[in-house]
C-alpha cells in the first residue's frame, strides 16, 4: 500500500534518526551504569549544547561543528563537577530517587536560564548546506542528517574504544558491572563515577551539536526528548551502551516506518509502548545485561 520509494526513503530516514537517538541516549545510559542515576537533565544539556553551537555560529559565522572544540571539554568538566559537588552529597540509600529530583531541578534551571539569556524564540542554525542532499537509489539523503549520523557513529565508536582499551575505560566498566568488586580492586569508584558523568555530558555536547544542525531549538525542547530517550535506555537495558544503541536504531526505524500508516503523533507512542512492554515482559531490557533487574 506504500510505494517502494517511500518505504526506502522511510528506512533511510529511520536509520539516520536511529543513529541520532543512539548518540543522544548514550550518555543517559552511561550515567545510569556508573551511578544508578536517571539524569533527567541530560536532554536539557543537549539543548544547552545546541544553543552553544547556534550561538557560536551566530557570533563567529564559522561552522557549528567547530564549537565542539569548546563544548566537549567544557561539558566534561561540568559533568565531573556536577558529580563531585552535587550527586556525591546525596545519601546512597535514597540516591536513585533524589538524583532524579536533583537532575530534574537542574533541567528546570537550564531551561529557565536559556529562556532568560536567549528568550523563548525558536532558533535554527542557518547553514549553506541545510537543504542539500545526495541521491541514493531514487531516495534522498540530507547532508546534515548524514553529518549527524557520522558524528554519532564516530563518537559511539570512540566511546567504545575508550571503554574497551583505556585504563579509565576499564575502571569504568568494572564500576558499571560491579561497584563493590571494583572498590576491592582498588578503583576509586567515586572518581570514576565523576569521569563517567563527565564523559556522559561530553557525549551530550556532541549530541546537542548534531541535533542543532537540522532542527529548531527552544528552551523547553528538552521535554520533547527526555521521554523517548528514557524509553530507549530501558528497552536497551539500563546501563548498557550497546543495548541503548541497538534499541535506538530499532525504535528510530520503527517510528519512521510506523509514521506511514499511523501518522506522526501516534507513531511517537511506539517509544512508550516499547517501554511498557519491556517492563512487563523483560524488566532488565531486551539488549542489556542483568544490571537493570532490580531497578
Amino acid at each position: 500500500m506504500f510505494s517502494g520509494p517511500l518505504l526506502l526513503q522511510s528506512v533511510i530516514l529511520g536509520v539516520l534518526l536511529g543513529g541520532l537517538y543512539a548518540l543522544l541516549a548514550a550518555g543517559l545510559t552511561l550515567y545510569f551504569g556508573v551511578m544508578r542515576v536517571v539524569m533527567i537533565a541530560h536532554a536539557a544539556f543537549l539543548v544547552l549544547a545546541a544553543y552553544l553551537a547556534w550561538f557560536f555560529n551566530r557570533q563567529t559565522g564559522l561552522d557549528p561543528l567547530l564549537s565542539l572544540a569548546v563544548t566537549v571539554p567544557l561539558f566534561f568538566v561540568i559533568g565531573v563537577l556536577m558529580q563531585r559537588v552535587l550527586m556525591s552529597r546525596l545519601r546512597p540509600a535514597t540516591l536513585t530517587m533524589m538524583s532524579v529530583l536533583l537532575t530534574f531541578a537542574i533541567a528546570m534551571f537550564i531551561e529557565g536560564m536559556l529562556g532568560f539569556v536567549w528568550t523563548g524564540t525558536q532558533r535554527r542554525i542557518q547553514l549553506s548546506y541545510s537543504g542539500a542532499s545526495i541521491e541514493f537509489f531514487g531516495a534522498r539523503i540530507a547532508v546534515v542528517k548524514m553529518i549527524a549520523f557520522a558524528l554519532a557513529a564516530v563518537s559511539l565508536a570512540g566511546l567504545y574504544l575508550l571503554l574497551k582499551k583505556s585504563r579509565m575505560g576499564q575502571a569504568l566498566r568494572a564500576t558499571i558491572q560491579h561497584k563493590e568488586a571494583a572498590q576491592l580492586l582498588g578503583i576509586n569508584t567515586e572518581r570514576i563515577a565523576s569521569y563517567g558523568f563527565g564523559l556522559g555530558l561530553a557525549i551530550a555536547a556532541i549530541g546537542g551539536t548534531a541535533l542543532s544542525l537540522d532542527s529548531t531549538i527552544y528552551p523547553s525542547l528538552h521535554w520533547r526528548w527526555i521521554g523517548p530517550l528514557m524509553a530507549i535506555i530501558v528497552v536497551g537495558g539500563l546501563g548498557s551502551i550497546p543495548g541503548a544503541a541497538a534499541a535506538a536504531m530499532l525504535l528510530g526505524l520503527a517510528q519512521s516506518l510506523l509514521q506511514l500508516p499511523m501518522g506522526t503523533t501516534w507513531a511517537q507512542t511506539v517509544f512508550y509502548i516499547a517501554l511498557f512492554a519491556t517492563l512487563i515482559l523483560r524488566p532488565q531490557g531486551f539488549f542489556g545485561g542483568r544490571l537493570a533487574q532490580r531497578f
Partner: protein
Amino acid sequence: MNSSKRLLFGVLVSVSALAVTGCSQGGGATKTVADEVTIGISLPLTGDFSEPGKGVQRGYEAWAKYVNQNGGLMGKKVRLTILDDQSNADRVASDYEKLINRDKVDLVFGPFSTRLVVPAAQVAKDYGYLFVEPAGAAAEVFTKGFGNLFYAAPAVANDHYNYLAKTILAMPISQRPKTAAYASMDDPFAQGTAYGLKGKLEAGGIKTVVNEVYPPDTTDFGGIAAKIATSKADIVVGGTQYQDAVNLIVALQQLNYQPKLAAFSTAPTNPEFPKAIGDKTEGILAPTGYTPGAAWPSNVKFVDFYTKTNGNAPGEDEANAWTTGEVVAAAVEAVKCADPSPKCQAKLIDYLHKNTVETVVGPLSWDKDGRPQGAHLIQQYVKGAIRIVLPEVQKEADLLYPKPQW
C-alpha cells in the same frame, strides 16, 4: 506526627493566610487616577508562545503611546497593565482575574493564541467585560457562546486562504493542480487555516493525497516530508506556526520535492523567515491579515508612527494588537464610557455588535459570535520580498505560478 509539627503547621498557615490577605489590602493602591483609562492585558511573554506574544506587546504599547500623544481616550490618558501568563492557561485566567478584581482596570484586551483566548474570555465574560482579542482565530473560539468576544482581524482561520482557493479553482483545467498535500500542526489555529483551504479545494475536485497532522513539539519532519515528496503532490499546504514551517520546508528541500505551489500560514510573514530559509523563499505563499502597504487611512498613520518609534515596519502581530486598540477605542468614543461597570461594558459590547469600525486592516464588523466578516490577503515571496498578490485589487505583484524551484 508529633505535636511540635502541628504547632508549626498552625503558625505557618496563619502567617501565610495573613500574608495573602495582607497583600490584598495593599492592592487597592493601584486604583486608577480619575483622568486615566486603565487597560489590563495578559500576554505570553515567556514560554512557548512568547515570540508572537512579544509582537502583540509591541503593538499594544505603540498604540497606547500613539493615543496618548494624540489626545488620549475620551481626553484621558491610557495606561496599560501587561502581565505575563507564561503561555499557561491557568495563569492567563488568573491574570485577568487579577486585572479585573485587583487592579480594577477599566478595559481588558485579549491575549495571544487560541489556547489562551478561551479561558481568558471566560473570565472576562463572567465579570461582564468586553473582550476584543488579537489572536484567537480558530473556528472553535466562536462556537463557545461568548457574547462579549470580538476578533480584531479580517477573518477567522478557516477563511484565511479564501482568495487563494478562488484563484486556484478559477484556473483553466490544464494548469490547475490536481493533487494537494496538507501538513498541519495540531493546533486549532494552524490546522484551521490548512483545513479551510482543504475543504474548498476538495469541493473543487482537487484530490488530497497526503493529510498529516503533527504535535506542536515536533522537530523532525523527515518522515512527513518523505510522504509529501513521494506523493508528488502538485501543491503543498502547511498549517503552520513558525518553527515547524521552517523545518518542514527545509526537510522538503532536502528531498528535492518541487511543488507548483507552496503555502504556509504565519511563518513566511515573520521577518526572520528569509534568514532561516536562506535564498530559497521565492514563490512561497502565505495568508496575512495585514500589510503595511495597505492604503486604509489609519494604516498610513500606524506604519508611519510605528516605524518612527521602533525603527522597522510593523508585522501582523503588531497590527492585530493595534487593531484591537482601535476597535475598543472606537466603541469607547462612541458610547462615551470606559469603566468596569457592567452597564458601560454592555454598551461597548452592544456597540460593536451593531457597527463597523475602521481599522488598519480595513473596516471590520462582526457576527453575533464575534467572527469578523472580512478576508485575508495572500502574500508571496516575489524577487526576494514578500508582496501582496491576491486579491487583484490590492496586489503589489503578480502571482507566481507555478512556483520556481527551491
